[in-house]
């Protein structure tokens, strides 16, 4: 079992000091949520993203799956051990799916967030989605339909 401090030591990514450095970071092959982002095993869902798969090697600096902005924290995907692959899904109009991740056998990936810490990802193929809510239309920013808006933390 890996600890938070082990994972931190391998990546250039700051998490809040109040997170417990001894906290276990399990590397799971199932469905996992990290705040407003969810990692779904591709075989669980019917989603065109799984058909395209992930082919871009994740660089050492990681990939900002959800980029940071004032008041919003980024979710950054790292290859934790061995090569891992990523593909951003460009969907017009935008939906919940933001991309696909492939972790080959023998590799591990982590998704990092300043407040949530790390989510360990075991070998497998996954789709990453964001979270939405049902709300009044306030403008094109963050809205995926007239009554649905992406949320962020």
């Amino acid at each position, binding site marked *: 079992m890996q600890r938070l401090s082990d994972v931190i030591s391998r990546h250039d990514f700051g998490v809040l000091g109040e997170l417990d450095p001894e906290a276990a970071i399990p590397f799971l092959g199932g469905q996992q949520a*990290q705040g407003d982002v969810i990692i779904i095993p591709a075989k669980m869902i019917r989603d065109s993203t799984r058909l395209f798969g992930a082919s871009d090697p994740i660089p050492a600096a990681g990939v900002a799956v959800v980029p940071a902005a004032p008041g919003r924290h980024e979710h950054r995907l790292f290859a934790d051990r061995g090569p891992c692959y990523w593909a951003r899904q460009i969907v017009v109009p935008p939906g919940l799916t933001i991309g696909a991740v492939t972790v080959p056998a023998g590799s591990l990936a982590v998704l990092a*967030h300043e407040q*949530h810490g790390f989510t360990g990802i075991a070998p497998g193929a996954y789709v990453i989605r964001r979270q939405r*809510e049902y*709300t009044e239309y306030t403008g094109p920013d963050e809205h995926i339909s007239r009554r649905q808006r992406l949320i962020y933390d």
Partner: protein
Amino acid sequence: MPAMISELSPSQWAQVARLREEWITTAASCGAADREAAEAAISSIYRSVGRPPPRFVWFDGPATPSLVCMLQRLVRHPVFPGTGRPIAAVIRESAWFSRGLEPSLARALSNALGPDLRRALGRVILGAATGRWRAGPLMDVLGDWLSDQGDDVPPGEPGVAAGGSLPDGSLGGPLEESLLGYVPRWVEDCLEVAAGGVAGEILGAYPMWQLAIPEISLRYPARDISRGARFDGQFDADWIAFFDIPRQLGLVSYPESTSAWLDDWVTLARSCGWWWPYENVCIVSGRPSILRTDSALQLHNADGPAMAFGDGLAIYCWHGRVVPAWVIEEPTTERIFYESNVEIRRCAIESRGWEAFIGDLPGVPATAPDPGNPGQQLRLYELPPRGSGWWYHVRLLVCANGTPEADGSRHLFGIFVPRHITDPVGAAAWTYGLTKKQYLRLERRA
């Protein structure tokens, strides 16, 4: 030099605690800047890098300097792209200046910067210096000092606290963290607000800027501006204290010139706010007029701005998070419902009070265990039907963060879901576009 820092005596620990309190007071102090002391210290720093002392331009807060620093990047574009209108006219007309900031900037620009604006602001002499200065001779000295303590002390984490703890337990953890580790967050947050407000007001009115000048990032105005040299004055207290406290305790003796250099920084921390050094001019911000924190020393004020400056910049914070003013001033249930940022919404609900907020909601929530989040419940509230507003069509799902806070508590979040969903797990599943059956397979929530 002492053999092992962990052998600090109880009286030395008491001294550390006292010095720590002094430095926290310094970092959090309000009131007028000591301009004379600050100018002397900055002049000394200029001389130490082989430059004559600059002229000084003082501002009452960081908002105006942030704008000035942004403008220096734009002087290549004396007219606004697409409009042909002079930058000065646009600035004058922006709403931000109508709030009383124009005189200070105009005076400063005409009197102090004047014809030198392009030359002085265009060349940022210390652009690359920040890292070098912070990790320069002082760090080398401290690194040597640390390496004398044994090979197992990691750099940047002095062994001061490793082998002992304060008798009264008031200073736990590594010294670096215990001292003032929270300060840099203030700095970035405040400048982000300052520059974000400026950029938003000006650039927001002229969105073509975004296209015409790609190096200006609307999303990161503060980071963009601060890419040049910026030092934080009293908010540099964390690292200055880090080097100063061992010196005051006699645990380390720096070379004389290095020690004198540190003295300049100590003086700055005690006399001014942020400062932006340029070739001939140094822009300096005054200290805050208000600065309030919670018991964890995070910026926080439930009754007004947590930080304010003489130039009118006011920053509202809820336990360290920068929030819009209404979150503190008027956190009504209606405003909370209209807020799109769940973090700000959470702060607003806490500001309003969860009990009061939920008290506005009718009925008893439907509850269910939160998948992947052991011990936590999902709660689905029906919202009060008021008129024909959109919220008539939603329910509020209240869920707990997967990661506990330092005190073991959980942050609660409220997310709106369509009213036709009556099952809490089904509601949570909907937010990710999943079915209830799929969502029940969630293994872990971080």
